[in-house]
């Protein structure tokens, strides 16, 4: 698959950082990139299971483009959502569906997270992809 230039740049940026704290700081900053799914809309069907924190996602398809809304009570998790937002929001369904969660591994993000968090990311990714497939 091909990544958006935004995502490519982000991956490059991540790769350059050695210090784990700085990498986490970057993820934190990306929490602002989400299209916030307000807490009032958090339901059982938006919840990402297997996350230790509350993490909620919602997908819409408008004109064959993915629209992705999300929010979490952990800034780190929401930062991961921000990265996913950059990877799929406003992108064509067809192209999104070629994505694999490997891009996050490539960025070295998953390694900086605890196994439960990186499982959480994979769960979120799978849930989002399933919903896109379902809607499409």
């Amino acid at each position, binding site marked *: 698959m091909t990544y958006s230039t935004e995502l490519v740049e982000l991956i490059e940026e991540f790769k350059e950082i050695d*210090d*784990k*704290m700085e990498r*986490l*700081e970057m993820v*934190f900053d990306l929490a602002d990139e989400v299209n916030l799914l307000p807490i009032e809309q958090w339901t059982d069907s938006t919840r990402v299971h297997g996350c*230790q*924190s509350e993490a909620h996602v919602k997908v819409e398809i408008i004109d064959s483009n993915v629209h992705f809304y999300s929010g979490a*009570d*952990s*800034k*780190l998790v929401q930062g991961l959502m921000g990265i996913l937002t950059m990877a799929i929001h406003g992108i064509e369904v067809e192209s999104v569906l070629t994505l694999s969660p490997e891009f996050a591994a490539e960025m070295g993000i998953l390694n*900086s*997270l*605890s196994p439960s*968090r990186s499982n959480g990311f994979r769960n979120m990714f799978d849930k989002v992809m399933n919903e896109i497939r379902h809607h499409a």
Partner: protein
Amino acid sequence: MRDDFPILQREINGYPLVYFDNAATTQKPNSVIDAMNDYYSNSNANVHRAVHTLAGEATEGYESCRRELKSRFNASKAIITSGTTEAINLVAHAWGRANLSDGDAIILTEMEHHSDIVPWQMLAKEMNIELRYVPVQKDLTLDMDLFEDAIEGAKLVCVVHISNVLGVCNPVEKIIEIAKKKGARVLLDAAQSAPHQEIDFQQLGADFMAFSAHKMCGPTGIGSLLVSEDAFAEMQPFMGGGDMIETVSIHGSTYQKNEQKFEAGTPRIAEAIGWSEAIKWLNSIDIKSEHKRILHSARWLAVQLREMGMTVYGRHDDNDAAVVSFLHPTMNSEDLAHLLDARGFAVRTGHHCAQPLLDRLEITGTVRVSLYFYNTHEEVVSFVDYLKEILERFA
């Protein structure tokens, strides 16, 4: 002392490991690691009923663990289990099933670890037994008045000696005294107290005491249940298999008389040998003054955290463990733990397997710092310094 623990040389993300997750599990001294190594490299064999030299060495090593346990805790019966959890389940099955009946009551507290709740919930459901939970008060102590009300008609009292979330040491002497008067048996969950205190089991007068090796410098996969002679006589076998029997025929079986009756199958030989050394290591240090030292650090930490605006759950009385559970008013606990890990600080977050206690405190988790004897005050100071930095940058 730190030199005894090889893992303390470890670096995490380029920073020295500061291990503050001791209530979850402690680190192991070289003597423990070496003993297991030596067992596997030189003496490995199955125990009991064999004639050859290795089997003799293995048997002696395994039984030495029981001797060390009995002598450190002054107990006459020490059953070896796979840990606290299995020890408590053993009581539920071997004692509970044989001595409780429809309508009987068991007392628990809201401070219990899940391992001292779920086995009783399962038994209660199966045998129609009433569970009475002693509430935790605002000051983080048990409501002893309600305990005295609850004891009427109860057959068993299950109480955590030291809370793994709060570090609070419960008044077990008093609880045992009251329970004995009413003829109830007492199970102590000593998972957190056995590592931190000197306990005289027979003098204390409890009937059962469960704890794990891995929380007291010993290996994973092994623990013990100490049992009073009276309670031991009331226990029926739990798991069946090799080593716990005297004779087996297709018509039925007879069982061993001693602790082996409850140790079915090939036992945890290497683990017992390792644990034996861990107990010797604990015997070799001045546990009372070490406890004072780390409790002092914990108190200092609690003050600092409160000054930073954290809510601290704990009171840090003289017998409490050096455990500091806290919450930041806005920052997510796991985010905090991730940031701490980035500089080598290992803390635990989450419900610490004590959801009923957290329900009572109206929270869903804490960040927990739990100290052990190899921790230094300098580590605690550097923790506070780094936490300040985190809060400045992220909160």
